[in-house]
């Protein structure tokens, strides 16, 4: 089995969805998670708060500095992620397709380093 990260690339510049849209979206993503669980491939899921709540800690000369905001000042930020385990990329991509449709954002599908040969 291999582990894959399905990372939601959330566009922070887009208008905030209405209460109702948000509820529908959560119902959709919740369903995907439930289906992952019954398929036995679910490992983890989490939604993240936005850039406004983010802090970066940087190392340098043995000390650290802190800055407000996300690491990269881009429109798309990590909005949340699933971790799944499955046989191959095709299965991971099939879940990726479902996640993308459920949350309406691009999903980056990335294998874990230790996903090989486990």
């Amino acid at each position, binding site marked *: 089995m291999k582990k894959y990260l399905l990372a939601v690339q959330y566009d922070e510049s887009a208008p905030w969805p209405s209460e109702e849209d948000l509820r529908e979206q959560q119902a959709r993503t919740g369903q995907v998670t439930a289906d992952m669980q019954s398929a036995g491939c679910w490992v983890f899921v989490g939604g993240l708060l936005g850039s406004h709540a983010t802090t970066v800690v940087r190392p340098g000369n043995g000390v650290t500095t802190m800055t407000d905001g996300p690491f990269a000042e881009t429109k798309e930020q990590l909005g949340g992620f699933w971790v799944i385990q499955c046989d*191959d990329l095709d299965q991971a*991509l099939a879940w990726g397709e479902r996640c993308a449709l459920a949350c309406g954002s691009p999903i980056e599908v990335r*294998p874990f380093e230790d996903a090989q*040969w486990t």
Partner: protein
Amino acid sequence: MDLDGIYRAEYSRCVATLTRLLGDIGLAEEFVQDAFTVAVQKWDEQPPPNPGAWIVTTARNRAIDRLRRESTREARHAQALLLHHVDEPQEMGPVRDDQLRMIFTCCHPALSPPAQTALTLRLLGGLEVAEIARAYLVPEATVAQRIVRAKKKIRDAGIPYRVPGAAELPDRLASVLTVLYLVFNEGYTSTSGHLLRTDLCLEAVRLTRALAELMPDEPEVIGLLALLLLTEARRPARVGPSGELVVLAEQDRSLWNRELIAEGHELVRRCLRRNQPGPYQLQAAINAVHTDGPATDWAQVLALYDQLLHHTPTPIVALNRAVAVAEVHGPATALAAIEDLDLPGYHLLPATRADLLARLGRTAEAVAAYDEAITLATNDTERTFLQTRRARQGA
């Protein structure tokens, strides 16, 4: 003993089978190379009756030997796969063909299109990196890097080695068709040396046939198969007794393969009945007209090219259409039609222009265009053909 010939014929089949056994393309290639090195020492004069099977068995045994000595997790995994697979039925899924499995892996949408083609030509066509680089007019290092990266992604990301299931199959098809078409073309008009590499043509036809059996309801698969068969049928007449290129109009039609033509025509009729035209079906229909009766009905060819240009508005299609325009409306109209085409480095543009200029009696311009085409042509047979045409201008 023709070890080079055997290598060319068997390499890709052996790698495809070993990849199924080992679960890794890179390892498969390594052990197949290994087995060929052993073959050089062991075969002396006479290769075994089934050299491919010998190579696969030798490569598999060497893989088991080596993996037993290594203790990495990776090696243990590969060994487990190898031993596990030996007695297993070939594989689930509709097609028991390692090479078809390989082509769907090589043409996986998670790989970039240039990587898909390079990988397929290397692993299925058995082309060397240098040959692929010439086919695409890019540096060898670029192709080499594309292949290395693609293999690394297949392995690291876990792109599976199997024919996709029914639901995914149609989506995965378009890139596979493109790649098969390119492999055939590479065989039909080699980028280097002699004109034809029959093995590649036959391989492309074989793989397309297997695909058509797998997907009999996909009109474009049938279209591609018809196109390849009707093109392949004319191959014996395409090169003259001293290896020179013979153009369609001057070909000895009695040399054409009637069986392939009949099969191709039947497939084109099947496509027409279905009436869902696409680029491959249209090209097949054009070739059906070329191979129907004692001479080509150019008006019909032109009508089909008009449809093709509508589906696929590329400069290459426009250039090929101009040849039909010349036959129907004369060389001056055709010349005007190709004036603005932009196909840098493509020898057939100046070659077509040269032919049209020659027919219009504009000798000096024709000679200059032939010179340009001769400089750009990469295979000897085409170059010789162009030189002969140029000499006929008497300038």
